[in-house]
């Protein structure tokens, strides 16, 4: 049960590798609206919760921090709006929006090998760019736009989960990379526009997780940005040290150079 004190986080792609770790790591610290298409994160929610087999009537403390699971295919018309409505109806606010849901299809034989790449343009840009744009715009229109002092007091912000692929060239990732590059620029422009009403926007650009950087570190980077005052940045996670900006948190490094 929410105490009303915790920050409210709306995260998309909540049942994926990063989303699941984020929910499992922070469900007792945030009130989380977990947007999932099919699976659900392995934490207490309205769908599942803990029971003590040896004392089934006894309250289990973790159940007081249930996430709120919303199933949605965010690329369908009206779904982003429905999720925003549900989040605001449930908690009355959103302090942190994490655009984490992503589409990725690789084309290891290149974009001229048949029509595969052309057919994958819309899915990549719809979910990786269009959905973060729509969430940001709708949350602003329905909640943030006229709440500047409260936004600043609550340090409200957006974290877009980008990728190192958005600034580096990796064979076979042309469409995914292009969509993440667009997300990076979308983040900068949103940060500039939303400064008017006190909502920050940043992106993290992790290298491959969990292969090259622990997923927990990527999840931690989201929280570090949430408690920071940064805006308009694209921060690498797990990238080479020479990309780091020493004036900022050691966990976060400027991804683009």
């Amino acid at each position, binding site marked *: 049960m929410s105490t009303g004190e915790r920050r409210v986080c709306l995260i998309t792609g909540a049942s994926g590798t990063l989303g699941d770790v984020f929910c499992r790591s922070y469900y007792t610290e945030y009130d989380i609206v977990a947007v999932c298409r099919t699976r659900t994160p392995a934490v207490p929610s309205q*769908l*599942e*919760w803990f*029971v003590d*087999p*040896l004392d089934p009537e006894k309250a*289990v403390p973790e159940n007081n921090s249930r996430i709120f699971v919303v199933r949605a295919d965010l690329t369908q018309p009206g779904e982003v709006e429905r999720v925003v409505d549900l989040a605001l109806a449930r908690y009355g606010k959103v302090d942190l929006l994490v655009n984490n849901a992503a589409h990725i299809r690789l084309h290891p034989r290149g974009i001229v090998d048949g029509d595969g790449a052309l057919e994958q343009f819309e899915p990549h840009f719809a979910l990786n760019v269009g959905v973060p744009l729509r969430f940001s715009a709708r949350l602003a229109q329905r909640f943030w736009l006229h709440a500047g002092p409260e936004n600043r007091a609550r340090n409200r912000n957006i974290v877009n989960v980008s990728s190192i692929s958005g600034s580096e060239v990796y064979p076979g990732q042309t469409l995914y990379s292009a969509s993440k590059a667009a997300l990076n620029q979308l983040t900068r422009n949103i940060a500039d526009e939303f400064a008017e009403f006190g909502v920050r926007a940043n992106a993290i650009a992790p290298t491959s997780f969990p292969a090259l950087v622990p997923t927990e570190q990527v999840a931690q980077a989201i929280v570090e940005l949430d408690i920071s005052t940064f805006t308009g940045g694209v921060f690498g996670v797990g990238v080479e040290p020479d990309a780091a900006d020493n004036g900022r948190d050691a966990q976060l490094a400027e991804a683009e150079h």
Partner: protein
Amino acid sequence: MVTTEWVLDAPAKAQRFADLFAHRRWIRRNQPFPHVYARDVFVPEFYQRMTDELTRLRRERPELFGKVAADYSADGVRLADLRDGPLGVFVSREWHDLIAGIAGVTATGDIEGSLHHHAPGAPYGWPHNDLNPGWFPGEPPGPDEVRLPDETVNTKTGERAPGVIARESVRAVAVLFYFGNPGWQPGDGGETALYDNMSEGEKLPELTLVPPLDNSLILFEVTPRTWHTFAGNNTKDRNSLVMWAHRTKDDALQRWGGDRIVYW
């Protein structure tokens, strides 16, 4: 009269039982129907004893593995034949009370079930809800006892010799404990399929597949809507322990109505 010895022994026995469990965070789920799921149920040492016992039974007592049912693909060993080893935990009163407590059921102390083994390539089963009757011999068990079926009474029909006392009850709590399936991976098959509905013609039911991961279990109160089946297509041997605790027939009739009980 309560002796000092009894007072000291009961908590010690309860503690020994509690010490068998690896943790106290099982998961209660409400879809596709209410059930409880748990991973890493027993502590590793005790779980190892269970799998060792399974290996020993298959090696030394193959005659115990009989066909579970005429139209079912598993062979199995009855719970009554497992009482003396580590698998005997499933016929303990403590376990009976634990599963009844989680399900929120007032159970009779009557339990039935068996160790199931599906050979590779077993066929898909048929959806069923387990809301079946069961006949048990003798008077109702006492508060610290459990009662299992025996040869004097036909468990499904109650058929028995004149003068033999028996009682009809109804399955109330179902437990499937998966063990002896090392290294199970997605694609290996042999899951338990849970259905959200069995309505005809409207739409296909949603399936939830519960993998037979070692030292995990699924547990649910048996209701008219607990549709489930063995999903078959297992590429390796698939082992589990399947059991039910029962409620009185009166309780079942009051809860579900007589027409919902599925007679054999």
